[in-house]
């Protein structure tokens, strides 16, 4: 899932302070699970803004709302009329949601209420860890299911580097060395000798380096076009 964390209230206040009607708009999927931007968190942020407005003597109407997904129109279309009553939407969805909604609100700006951090998992309650970088060219079958792109600070394909220290990364002794984990995992799997093969330079064009990515699933597109044509008749 997508993991995010709340922005400091001072930063939020600097974004919203000049607006009169603010809607804090939560997304109840990924960012709700990581306690950053669900409807509950949107409600908390709305009250923090109201308190701040009161302290600063600023007159401002602040409300909150939440829907299931900000990344598919059918989830927020039913509340679009409501959204358009405000002069700022502070979205607590991930960056995808902010972009997507912003394209559809006309002259109303949509600002980010959280920092979108990574694709991660929940090893224990309240802890979120990054496990995938969405690089567009998965090589987990070569590395014992442990991603060196997301989990090695140097994105090394032929690790480890010389910086591994007692199983930890040279960046911090709080961070596991991904290559240490890969080696230990591949030993267990009995596939360590696979690491002797040199992985060639990557084609980063599948990653963000190739520009914004778009995937079109042809059979779905064809089906939709047919349905649209039928409805047109």
């Amino acid at each position, binding site marked *: 899932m997508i993991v995010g964390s709340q922005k400091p209230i001072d930063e939020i206040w600097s974004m919203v302070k000049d607006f009169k009607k603010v809607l804090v708009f939560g997304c109840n999927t990924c960012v709700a699970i990581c306690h950053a931007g669900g409807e509950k968190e949107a409600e908390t942020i709305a009250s923090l803004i109201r308190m701040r407005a009161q302290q600063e003597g600023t007159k401002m109407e602040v409300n909150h709302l939440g829907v299931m997904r900000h990344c598919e129109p059918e989830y927020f279309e039913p509340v679009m009329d409501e959204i358009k009553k405000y002069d700022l939407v502070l979205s607590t969805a991930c960056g995808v949601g902010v972009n997507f909604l912003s394209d559809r609100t006309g002259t109303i700006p949509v600002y980010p209420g959280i920092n979108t951090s990574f694709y991660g998992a929940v090893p224990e309650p309240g802890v979120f860890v990054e496990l995938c970088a969405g690089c567009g060219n998965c090589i987990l079958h070569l590395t014992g299911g442990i991603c060196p792109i997301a989990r090695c600070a140097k994105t*090394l394909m032929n690790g480890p580097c010389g910086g*591994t220290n007692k199983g930890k990364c040279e960046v911090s002794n709080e961070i596991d060395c991904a290559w240490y984990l890969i080696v230990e995992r591949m030993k267990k799997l009995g596939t360590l000798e696979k690491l002797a093969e040199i992985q060639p330079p990557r084609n980063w064009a599948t990653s963000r380096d190739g520009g914004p990515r778009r995937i079109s699933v042809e059979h779905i597109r064809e089906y939709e076009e047919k349905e649209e044509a039928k409805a047109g008749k």
Partner: protein
Amino acid sequence: MKSGSNLEKVLASGKPAVTAELGPPMSADPHEVVHKAKQLKGFCDAANITDCQTAVVRISSIAAAAIAFQNGLEPVMQMTCRDRNRIAIQADLLGAAALGLKNCLCLAGDHQKFSAAGRLKGHPGAKNVYDLDTSQLVSMLKKMRDESKQEGGDPIEVPPKFFIGASWTPMGDPIDIRPMNLLKKVNAGADFIQTQGIYDMELFRAQMAKIRDLGLHERTAILAGIIVPKSAMMLKYMDSSVAGVSVPKAMIDRMSKAKAAAGEDKKKMKELQEQEGIKITIELIHQALETPGVKGVHIQAIEWESAIEGIVKAAGLYPRPSF
């Protein structure tokens, strides 16, 4: 000859090679490079010119290497993967070769967070590149040199003729993967290897036995890394905090004893520890060169280039061969 560099010639002659290290300054002043180059000239076969080591901005390796070269010291330019993508690296390699540089050491590079192990502000918020890693960088250099091709496949009319080096941390963690780690660098095309600093000679020799079993000592020239110890404190720090370095307790005790012999005299403390450090260095050089499969030593006297002359002479490695 792949490159015709002095280092390559020394290694080809079968004599033990000596490389040293020159750290460029954090300033635009070339004089420090010239001064250090003069201190090292004649006492090593080539000197590594570090590439913003510990992620601190300094005169670039290529520029400092060119200055050293103009002053009669053969440089080993260093190229890290941290700061440049494959376009910038290849452009710099062509430029370096055009300037007459003949040795290139390929490195991953310290992460940008390093900032001289926290002693300087550095640039911990910098974006790193790592378009390539070390093995890929070595392969790319080899392809440029031997196939006259850029990484992307475009032809190179006049290829850069580098003697290609890579680093190796023999006692790095996890230790049992390290021989394979070297195998990959050798398969990629590393002509020579400089190791991380070695204090635990017994452990290094055990790793070298594995390297000989793989036959790697015959496919690449391994130069054992020796970092000249300056004080007991430095040895303790290296042991506890530097990745892939372990220092035997007896060596730390020996240095502490040298320190204690000075009593309260701070100046003498420094002097006695430095003297002991040089003695330790000479012993390590001999032990390294006695290790089967080792073809030379890479002596790093960090910010102490003036020590190299005495060390090389005392180790019986002077004069250096000339061709």
